[in-house]
């Protein structure tokens, strides 16, 4: 009984995000790898996760490409929000 309790404790660094308790979240975030190669690795993992789920399948649909383009439109909207907010249909800007 004592041995099984010791073996089931996983160190915080290696837990995935969904297994981290809410109280441990700030320390988990601070322990992530923020070096340039760490950030590049994160982007690469994210890219391959999306690619292998939606594009690199036997019968990929238009949704795989469309989601990327929709995200691109959204990011461009966020980028130019400062100029666009003057074009709202309001009486006083």
């Amino acid at each position, binding site marked *: 009984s004592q041995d099984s309790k010791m073996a089931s404790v996983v160190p915080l660094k290696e837990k995935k995000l969904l297994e981290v308790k809410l109280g441990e979240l700030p320390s988990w975030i601070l322990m992530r790898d923020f070096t340039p190669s760490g950030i590049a690795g994160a982007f690469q993992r994210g890219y391959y996760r999306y*690619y292998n789920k939606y*594009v*690199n*399948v*036997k*019968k*990929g649909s238009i949704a*795989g*490409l469309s989601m*990327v*383009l929709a995200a*691109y*439109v959204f990011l*461009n*909207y966020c*980028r*130019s929000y400062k*100029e*666009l907010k*003057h*074009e709202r249909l309001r009486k006083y800007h």
Partner: protein
Amino acid sequence: MNENLFASFITPMMFGLPLVTLIVLFPSLLFPTSNRLINNRLISLQQWMLQLVSKQMMSIHNTKGQTWALMLMSLILFIGSTNLLGLLPHSFTPTTQLSMNLGMAIPLWAGAVITGFRNKTKASLAHFLPQGTPTPLIPMLVIIETISLFIQPVALAVRLTANITAGHLLIHLIGGATLALMSINTTTALITFIILILLTVLEFAVAMIQAYVFTLLVSLYLHDNT
């Protein structure tokens, strides 16, 4: 309205960092590579299209000219995808910037011309004088041919810039007109909206045609010089 019209052509920067680099690199994300024989649908479609275009465009060249196949194919893919992405709402089109188009046109044209001068010097110099000109006209004609040679890269760049910029401006203007007319006279707004739809279809065609024209002309300059 005046300031807003040209606001979409400003180079995007964020906190002093060039965001435009990411935007220029974004089309490469849409063309994945693969080493397999049978690929997923996206790559198979792109490979089929690329084979079609390369066969049609590189068939006129000899062996020496066909070494440019990779360069010309990546050129048409880049310009085509960048132009088409620029038709999405709120996006920035790098090919509206004259600096970028000059940066594409001048090296490619200069490469073709210098190749011609190095390998076939006599034939390249002979291009400056068409066959059968009367003797008194020769000096003036040589000057005119020289000018027309040096204007080729400028024309390539300005053609692409002007076409894409004019298309984007027209879409902005007619879209703004439709919005303004909706509260005044709905029928006119409807007609303007139909004009907007037709214009958008035209812009899709122009996006692809301009890529084709740019690459075709470079390939023609190459053909003259190999």
